């Protein structure tokens, strides 16, 4: 662990970091004991399960494993945060001042949630009806808020920044609607969706299907409305129109907030960042545009696709292959096509499995029309995907 120099340094032991590490040591014996993951977190989360945790259909404990148990054999783990990246010197500096030199660097540090970006949110989260599936700490409170809802306004929000899993802000809303119907409070309540963007979903095929779901469920949707403040004492939420800047105040009895998200500060402050702060990579090879021995993967990268774990499943083999080719001084042949997937839960036992690429063309894996709500696809998400994640993806075999 005192090693100061590694062939490959991987920043972040989340979905991307662990997948790439497993693949690299599986593919090349030479990288064993020559690869390190730097990550301060003791726990690793399978975040896609949080939609179901918030909806009361899964347990939070099934979404978490100790980081230690997931670090692949032959890979070291430095349990610190990276504070600085110096790509000109092939070096990263940890928050306790250690410098680690690398030949190749993989950036997989995820994104940073800006809880402070909405006034009053941090203080009010986790009580009095203010909830968010995006918080590891408070995700279980979403279920409490839904369960205890007795009618009135249930508001769901979608921010103006890029977010992880673009569908998650609305999935929890569909589950809530389903539950309110079963608990008999739906006819005493109004479900309101305030979206800072301009459409329900980027891919036409799935947007059409979702608009039907919204009509059927009688959900009130407004676009270009961005949540800017929570007033917990009055139980009011303040929205701002993205263009006119006009404000609107709505009373809430419960509100599920999807907070704004951004690139981690230490990346924003490094020369690896593009203008918006994300790691600046080639969208096909995932190699950094200026530092050829650096790759970027997952949520922290500027890949023009939806930030999901499913996308990383297709990105990880590309990083693995291209990094090995680079080591052999060969041309980088592996290409990522922008594949991403969003299992759009539309109720308990119903799901539209959206899968698409850079061209926003559907790329469906199953031999059925995935634009239709299906129980089979719900079971895939709930029962199969977690298994594939822990035992296939994080082990570098799927």
């Amino acid at each position, binding site marked *: 662990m005192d090693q100061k120099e590694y062939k490959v340094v991987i920043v972040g032991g989340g979905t991307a970091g662990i997948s790439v590490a497993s693949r690299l040591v599986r593919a090349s014996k030479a990288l064993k004991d020559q690869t390190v993951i730097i990550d301060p977190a003791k726990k690793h989360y399978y975040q896609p399960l949080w939609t179901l945790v918030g909806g009361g259909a899964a347990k939070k404990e*099934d979404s978490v*494993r100790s980081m230690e148990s997931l670090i692949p054999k032959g890979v070291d783990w430095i349990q610190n945060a990276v504070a600085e990246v110096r790509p000109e010197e092939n070096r990263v500096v940890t928050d306790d001042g250690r410098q680690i030199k690398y030949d190749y660097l993989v950036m997989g540090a995820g994104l940073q949630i800006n809880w402070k970006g909405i006034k009053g949110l941090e203080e009010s989260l986790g009580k009095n009806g203010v909830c968010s599936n995006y918080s590891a700490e408070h995700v279980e409170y979403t279920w409490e808020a839904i369960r205890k809802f007795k009618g009135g306004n249930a508001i769901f929000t979608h921010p103006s920044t890029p977010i992880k899993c673009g569908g998650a802000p609305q999935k929890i809303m569909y589950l809530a609607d389903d539950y309110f119907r079963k608990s008999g409070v739906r006819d005493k309540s109004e479900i309101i969706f305030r979206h800072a963007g301009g459409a329900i979903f980027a891919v036409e095929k799935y947007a059409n299907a979702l608009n039907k779901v919204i009509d059927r469920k009688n959900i009130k949707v407004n676009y270009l409305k961005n949540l800017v403040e929570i007033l917990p004492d009055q139980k009011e939420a303040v929205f701002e129109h993205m263009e006119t800047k006009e404000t609107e105040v709505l009373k809430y009895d419960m509100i599920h907030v999807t907070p704004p998200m951004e690139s981690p500060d230490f990346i924003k402050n490094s020369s690896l960042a593009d203008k918006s702060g994300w790691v600046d990579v080639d969208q096909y090879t995932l190699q950094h545009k200026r530092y050829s021995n650096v790759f970027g993967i997952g949520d922290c990268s500027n890949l023009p696709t939806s930030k999901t774990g499913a996308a990383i499943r297709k990105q990880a083999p590309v990083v693995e292959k291209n990094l090995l080719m680079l080591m052999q001084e060969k041309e980088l042949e592996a290409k990522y096509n922008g594949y991403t997937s969003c299992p759009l839960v539309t109720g*308990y*036992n119903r799901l539209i499995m959206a899968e698409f690429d850079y061209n926003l063309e559907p790329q469906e894996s199953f*031999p059925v029309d995935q634009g239709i709500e299906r129980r089979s696809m719900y079971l895939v998400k709930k029962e199969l995907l*977690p*298994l594939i994640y*822990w035992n*296939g993806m994080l082990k570098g*075999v799927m």
Partner: protein
Amino acid sequence: MAVTKSFKDESRSDWELQLSDPEIQESLTILLQKLPRIKEAVLFSERAIDFVAAVSQDEETLQKFIGNAGKELSAYHLNEESLRSLTTLIKKLPNIIKVVSVLEDLLEFGKNVLQDDDSLDYIKEGMEEMATPIFSPLKEAKERTEQDNQQVSIFTLLKWLKEPQVQKGLKYVHALLEVYSEKHKK
């Protein structure tokens, strides 16, 4: 030639039908267990076939070979037909290798699942949940009955009679009675 039947030739429904056959499922399990050895065998035969392919394309060598050792060869049944099967097999090799490597990853995945207690618990819970869904109507009905102390009047009964589910049930009972009485007559 039996060997030449291609994976693509089979329609999807054939595949689905075959996969639901317990015998096929059992063979798949055995196949998975034997996979490492099969892979070795395939790699070995790949090299062997490369060699044979090279030889068989080389007319001159082949002529000499057959001329000199014709008798020995016929002992291995290396006649025209088996050479043709070999060529077909060679063409299919990339596919076979692809299938084998997918199976190899699947095998490792399966092994990981089996060694992972948390995942096994998760599967068990999932199964139990499917048998008793979260919002089981029977469970809910039982709970409501216990809480409900209102009187059921003849008018309530009449209202219930119009419910489509009740109508369906009654029609079923009617049909059942008809069938019974017909059988009785015979």
